[in-house]
């Protein structure tokens, strides 16, 4: 099969690889019809994730057609069109049984701190990803869902990660009626978090980024107030001033370890490798939120340590909420929102690439060319 393969930081290519096989009675093989490049794939593309081996195939956002199922799979059959949540999850371990399918303990031998994720390094289980023609999906009785009527393929694709993750961020903010919400990052997760904050009853939603085209998009899509922090000498001081010097009730870090905005953080993270990337968004979130407020971490960080203002978290009495999104738990409510037109996931798709051109797709996305917000990848076999 044709599959994207990682060649080292900032380099990917498409190669022929063996097709995946059933290795467990509860496996399914999915023929991918659409995959997306996620903002967190960029952390991999930049080589920031430990145990990211040459030859790995990325892609944790994908939908497709069931090609084959194992002997124990009884709720899917060949030919079913399914969306596959990015969490590889069993449904019966200590954590899955409590609804924490983003923290499954049975699908990632390499680490206990993180559950399995498709195409997201061996630190997340060594699973093959969806930027390929076929994917092995374990525990197929629990993970994948048949795409429901009224949900388009593009909407379904965005419901595998980006949309539920942004929605999850807003839920983790415990937003109460009329509260103020500040979101760092106007990428897909920040965009969906801003849209979702209104559904939770927020009274004010501000999104900050350094890219005008993304701020312009979120200002219309969410809608939201937008602030380009590159215009400010000290963004935190400005956020305090526009929140009557109290600070925001909720701050959401939708950037993660690949942030821009601090030379010191960039030098220690990307240059010295003394921390896992650049954590300036988290730093600003902690400092911009009010005392007693809530900080949500939804942007991806790797396992090693980061520089974060722990003293301010303590002195301000902050609540930190963070977790990988348990997509399965959000889907029923999100289907309702999509059908009611309250969230339109597919509207953030700006680019489509053939799988064969995926290196260009990564370049367009990572270098922010051509107003790119969300690129979709389509294998030639699916397009034919």
């Amino acid at each position, binding site marked *: 099969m044709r599959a994207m393969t990682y*060649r*080292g*930081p*900032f*380099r990917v*290519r498409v*190669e022929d690889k063996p097709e995946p096989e059933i*290795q467990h009675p*509860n496996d399914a093989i999915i023929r991918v019809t659409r995959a997306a490049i996620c903002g967190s794939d960029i952390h991999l593309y930049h080589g920031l994730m*430990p*145990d990211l*081996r*040459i*030859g*790995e195939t990325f892609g944790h956002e994908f939908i497709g057609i069931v090609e084959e199922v194992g002997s124990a799979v009884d709720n899917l059959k060949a030919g079913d069109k399914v969306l596959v949540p990015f969490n590889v999850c069993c449904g019966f*371990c*200590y954590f899955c*049984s409590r*609804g924490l399918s983003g923290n499954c*303990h*049975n699908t990632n031998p*390499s680490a*206990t701190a993180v559950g399995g994720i498709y195409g997201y390094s*061996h630190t997340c289980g*060594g699973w093959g990803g969806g930027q390929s023609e076929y994917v092995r999906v*374990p525990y197929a009785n629990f993970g994948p869902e048949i795409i429901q009527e009224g949900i388009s393929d593009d909407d379904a694709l965005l419901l595998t990660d980006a949309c539920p993750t942004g929605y999850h961020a807003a*839920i983790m903010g415990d937003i109460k*009626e009329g509260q103020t919400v500040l979101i760092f990052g106007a990428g897909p997760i920040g965009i969906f978090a801003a849209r979702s904050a209104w*559904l939770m009853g927020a*009274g*004010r*939603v501000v999104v900050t980024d350094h890219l*005008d085209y993304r*701020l312009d998009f979120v*200002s*219309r899509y*969410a*809608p*939201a107030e*937008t602030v380009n*922090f*590159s*215009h400010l*000498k*000290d963004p935190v001081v400005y956020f305090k001033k*526009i929140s009557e010097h109290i600070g925001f009730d909720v701050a959401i870090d939708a950037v993660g370890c690949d942030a821009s905005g601090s030379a010191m953080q960039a030098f220690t993270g990307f240059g010295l*490798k003394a921390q896992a990337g650049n954590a300036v968004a988290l730093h600003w979130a902690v400092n911009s939120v009010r005392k007693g407020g809530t900080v949500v971490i939804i942007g991806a960080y*790797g*396992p*090693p340590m980061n520089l974060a203002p722990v003293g301010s978290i303590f002195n301000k009495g902050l609540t930190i909420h963070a977790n990988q999104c348990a997509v399965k*738990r959000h889907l029923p*409510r999100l289907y309702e*929102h999509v059908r009611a037109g*309250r*969230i339109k996931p597919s509207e953030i798709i700006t680019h489509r690439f053939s799988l064969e051109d995926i290196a*260009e797709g*990564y*370049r*367009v996305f990572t*270098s922010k060319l051509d107003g790119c917000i969300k690129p979709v990848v389509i294998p030639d076999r699916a397009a034919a």
Partner: protein
Amino acid sequence: MTMRFYKEELKWTPSDPSVKRALGDDPVPAPGHSAASVPENYKEVHGWGADLDPANRPMVPRELPSDVTTVRGNVGARQVPTEKVHVSIEHPDLTPVFGNSCPPHGLSGMLRDYAFQFGEASNRHWMTLILADRVDMVEHLFGDALRGKPDNYIKEKGWPAYLKYNPGRNRRWLTLGALALGAVAVGVAVNQWRGRDD
């Protein structure tokens, strides 16, 4: 009211007084601050408050009740490993299923073997894995070249996208770069020609 600018806003040109203010009169919004798309009454935003009631919010409560008391639960069938799989020493055993898209090999594999002797709280674990990743890259660089599949840096880095998707700006830089290189080449050639005459 007299306009009052804060120092960080004066880094840039102050905004036009006619620009709609985001938050009343004070402070003046920074040049990069816009609230043009947000309705005056936030409750007019489509879908506002649909999940205001926590009962409508998935993952409230965050954890559901469960009778499962063991970390793995009722596992049943297990996937059989056919190649080496690294297992965190914080796991009780190999997980019932696992991916192994790129089994360990060579010197990088030995480094990974070493890294997995340490727990996930250990810097030696993660830093050794990062080192192994870079060694892996060098191993493949030479190994694939020897197998007749050398790296194509221009294509793999996706550089043609600069020309396809941002042609105006990048063609200008490429043209300037080509002119500069041409000028240098002409200069070197003229210099050598003069030297030969001497």
